């Protein structure tokens, strides 16, 4: 009886200790989310001293899905940015992690310095790449090309140009144009990948540490080469880590805003840039909120697909 009473006291204490956190989460996460959803159901515009709201149901959502000429092109270009960046990050990340997992002199130093790009704030990274890609003769990449004598001294390439790659190639050229791919977009993918790949390396490296060395020893005895070990041991056992990376990076890439806005402003309208433009530049708060929820739905959908693919595979 006495222990039951103490249990009750423990529960009460736990509730009291958790209450401030719960209230804070309600105030700073749940309440704004509810407000944003309410906003998305209104024509909401700022006026002096507040926001003027007129209920419009789900018409803000249907506007983007059926009427806006900018929404679907922005989804396509965002999907291209997300998929290509993810592929590059995964291939490079796994490759670099495998190298850093091997035993070689200076491994600790390499593991430490590889994190430097990740430590840079995105704004700094964006500005740095903006200068590297600058089309003037002050651009670092143009300078490098001239030093290597790839470009003549009078030539300055426009790295952030709007020409579609492979435009002359049948089918592929047309498809890339339809996706909204430009040279500038591909250059920004390089810039973003440079910053984020170290994170992928770090996560994969952590995953690699959990794979028992005995598995590789047994595989070696069985005569398996590097490729078979990679496909039959490493990658299957990395699945939980890869799932985390996929979900995390897909979320971040799909809602990308900063690096693209800083380098290209509104010239490359990924959904994040479009949301900012509609909400904060045109001051259509309701439509901006609706667009944010549409992005969230896309990300949730993708995350659900990942989880289903990976976990159902694991259960089999």
């Amino acid at each position, binding site marked *: 009886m006495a222990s039951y009473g103490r249990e009750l006291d423990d529960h009460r204490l736990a509730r009291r200790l958790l209450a401030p956190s719960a209230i804070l989460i309600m105030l700073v996460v749940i309440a704004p989310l509810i407000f944003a959803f309410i906003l998305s159901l209104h024509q909401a*515009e*700022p*006026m*002096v*001293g*507040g*926001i003027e709201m007129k209920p419009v149901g789900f018409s803000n959502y249907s506007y983007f899905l059926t009427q806006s*000429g900018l929404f679907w092109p922005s989804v396509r270009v965002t999907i291209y940015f997300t998929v290509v960046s993810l592929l590059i990050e995964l291939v490079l990340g796994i490759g670099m992690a495998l190298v850093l997992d091997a035993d070689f002199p200076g491994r600790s130093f390499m593991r430490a310095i590889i994190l430097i790009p990740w430590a840079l704030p995105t704004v700094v990274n964006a500005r740095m790449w903006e200068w590297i890609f*600058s*089309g*003037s*003769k*002050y651009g670092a990449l143009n300078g490098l090309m001239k030093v290597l004598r790839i470009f003549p001294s*009078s030539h*300055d390439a*426009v790295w*952030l*140009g*709007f*020409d579609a790659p492979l435009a002359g190639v049948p089918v592929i050229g047309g498809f890339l144009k339809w996706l909204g791919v430009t040279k*500038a977009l591909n250059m920004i993918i390089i810039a973003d990948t440079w910053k984020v790949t170290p994170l992928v390396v770090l996560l994969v490296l952590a995953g690699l540490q959990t794979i028992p060395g005995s598995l590789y020893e047994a595989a070696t005895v069985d005569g398996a080469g590097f490729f078979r070990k990679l496909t039959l041991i490493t990658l299957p056992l990395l699945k939980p880590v890869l799932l985390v990376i996929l979900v995390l990076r897909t979320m971040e890439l799909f809602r990308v805003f900063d690096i693209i806005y800083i380098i290209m*402003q*509104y*010239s490359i309208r990924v959904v994040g840039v479009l949301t900012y*433009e509609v909400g*904060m*530049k*045109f*001051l259509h708060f309701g439509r901006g909120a609706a667009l944010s929820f549409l992005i969230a739905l896309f990300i949730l959908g993708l995350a659900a697909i990942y989880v289903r693919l990976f976990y159902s595979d694991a259960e089999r």
Partner: protein
Amino acid sequence: MRRYALGVLFVLGVLILCGTGASAAKETLNVIYMAQAGYQPDDIRDMADLFEFLTDTKVNITFVKYDEQHEKIVASAVAPVATYDVILLDLIWTAEFASRKMVVPLDDRITADIRKDIAPAIMDAFVYDGKTWAMPFLANFQLFFYNMDMIRKAGFSAPPRTLEEMVDQMKAMKAKGIVKYPWTDSWNQKEGLVCEFVWLTGAFGGDTFDDRGRPTFNQGPGVQALEFMVGLLKDGLANPKCLTNDEDAAKDDFISGNAAFTTNWTFQYALMNDPKVSKVVGQGEMGLIPVSKSQIGKAETASVSGFQGAAIMANSRKKDLAWQYLRFITSPLVQRSYLQEMPVWTSVQTSAYATMMDRTMPIKSKQIAAVHHRPKVPPYPEVSSILQRYIHTALQMKMEPKAALDKAAEEINAVLKK
């Protein structure tokens, strides 16, 4: 418990003391200004220091990039009490802020004497719905910059008076290998692109919007203007980099000696003549923007306005003090002390002192009288965004100029009808 009570008492005591201190302190005025073109932050701080000295007021100034101002001003307007009492109002925001009642009209404060001394072209930029919403502060506009050495090397003795003459000079420069791309400009997908399109439409004898704010840019002069821009790119006269250039990058192209011609805001003049950053000191000159030869006899030049006014937020609690400050920083006395920017007052522009201190004043006076405005419509950011998008698409040669402008006009009309 006792310790807890003592702690509460201590905090309350500090708060009361701070409160008393605050009430005894000077009145504070909050101001937002851009750290970019126009008067530089040090100048603005100097003006505020003098105002503080004269009026026993504390002036807090928040400096932000031009692009960040609009968002911060809106956030300030939505709050119950304004974060900023005085804001810098770009002429393109006049209709938007006025229709949302975010700023107060200043008609009862701007006297007839003030109006008499400010050119209507400047004053009208801040008039919407019959009321004046800001006091003119910064008379920014575009001017023509040319490299006289390159012009001479190409075999000409004077800068071009018409756009057609300029094309001839550029072709000669290119043929002689004097410069790879004689023209540079800020044609990236930003507000600057609309500004370039506005003066070019003016140079072909038209305006982008009519008096009632309806699009006219998809007719005659507007189409000619966009065709001219596309033509420069097709003929290899304009640097393809223009499509990613803002005004700063265009200025860099010119002052590094990589272009013979450009148009830009007034700020380029000082940088062009600064040997620390410019490679064209003594070669670069400033003049009037040429117009199409079809306009000769009707107009000597054309430009675009980028006027900025000082306005008072409607939710400011210190409107009288804000007006005092605003009146001070826009006064002829202050503006004649900072002649690196064009004064808004006719009496200062034409004064012997100004003409003596700034030998370009006659050129500037002529150019400012030929400015064309962007439209005064409440959803201007949306209207401008559509226009930027289609002009840029045409410059990328993904659409024909006329088709692009027709589509832009159609979308803009839909936005204006809402």
